[in-house]
């Protein structure tokens, strides 16, 4: 009983875990990923274009929230500087679990064009926080970002309440 995650104990008459519960949880999670309104550099322009009516992330259930407390997903859209990295960590810690991170663009993946001869860039946001999906491009087109989010949805679909991934303690 102690080994089962806390979710199961909240189910009335708990302790029994059905695959359907997993499916229900995953379906509800992947269908309403609320992402944080958070842009760092030029990738944020592409993220805004993806959120606007031409590409419309809303039809995949993604709407932006202005607060990390209400967000499930943080899209790191742009260059992460050494000065910004502690702030990103703070924002990440403020997000409720389960939380997901998408590194958008080469800068957020590994430093990109600032890989060499730059003193102020963090070489990849995964040095500061865990990342679920990486999207290359400089900047990635809106299609690439949407593809990355579909990959994240597939990833959420594979999760189970038994995994640590789903709860991230």
């Amino acid at each position: 009983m102690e080994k089962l995650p806390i979710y199961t104990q909240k189910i009335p008459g708990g302790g029994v875990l059905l695959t359907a519960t997993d499916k229900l949880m995953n379906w509800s999670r992947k269908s309403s990923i609320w992402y944080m309104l958070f842009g760092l550099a030029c990738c944020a322009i592409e993220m805004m274009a993806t959120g606007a009516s031409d590409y419309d992330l809303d039809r995949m259930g993604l709407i932006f929230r202005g607060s990390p407390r209400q967000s499930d997903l943080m899209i790191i859209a742009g260059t992460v500087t050494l000065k910004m990295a502690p702030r990103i960590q703070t924002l990440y810690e403020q997000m409720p679990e389960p939380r997901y991170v998408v590194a958008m663009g080469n800068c957020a993946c590994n430093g990109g064009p600032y890989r060499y001869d730059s003193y102020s860039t963090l070489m990849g946001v995964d040095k500061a926080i865990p990342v679920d999906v990486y999207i290359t491009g400089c900047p990635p087109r809106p299609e690439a970002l949407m593809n990355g989010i579909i990959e994240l949805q597939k990833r959420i679909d594979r999760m189970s309440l038994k995994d640590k991934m789903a709860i991230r303690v």
Partner: protein
Amino acid sequence: MTQEELQSYILQKYPGFKLEPLAHDLTFLVPAEQYIPFCTFLKEDPSMAFQNVMSLTATDYLDYMQVVVHINSYSQKHRIAIKVTLDRENPKISTITHLWPGANWHERETYDLYGVLFDKHPDLRRILLADDWEGYPMRKGYTHWNLTPMPDDVTEVMKDYPTVPNPLG
């Protein structure tokens, strides 16, 4: 005022000043102790009437530092540049914030990246980099733990990456 008129007018007042050859704007090489009187003259003389600092930065020439100021007059429709040579080890110059408040952040940035100290500046703190940053990155020969120099042979780096066939053939 045209550039020739401007030049003869200023040299009338300050006959000792040297001109930078081959400069796009009219550029005066000003001794450090003449910097504030000269700037005050440029602001307060009715036919000069410089109202606006367009840019203020520095250059590191290894032997010495040079502060470069571009100032502009909206009413007289002319502009000039001033260059002041400083000691590289101990670059110190008076502020011009009391004449043109717009110079405030320019001087903070020059302090941040070049380490030029501006005397009597109201708030001389770092502006772009973190407050606890060490060193002045735009100086020649700057080193930092995060800085990877660009390798001479880029193909050596490319060997670490798998070759991807061109999808367009």
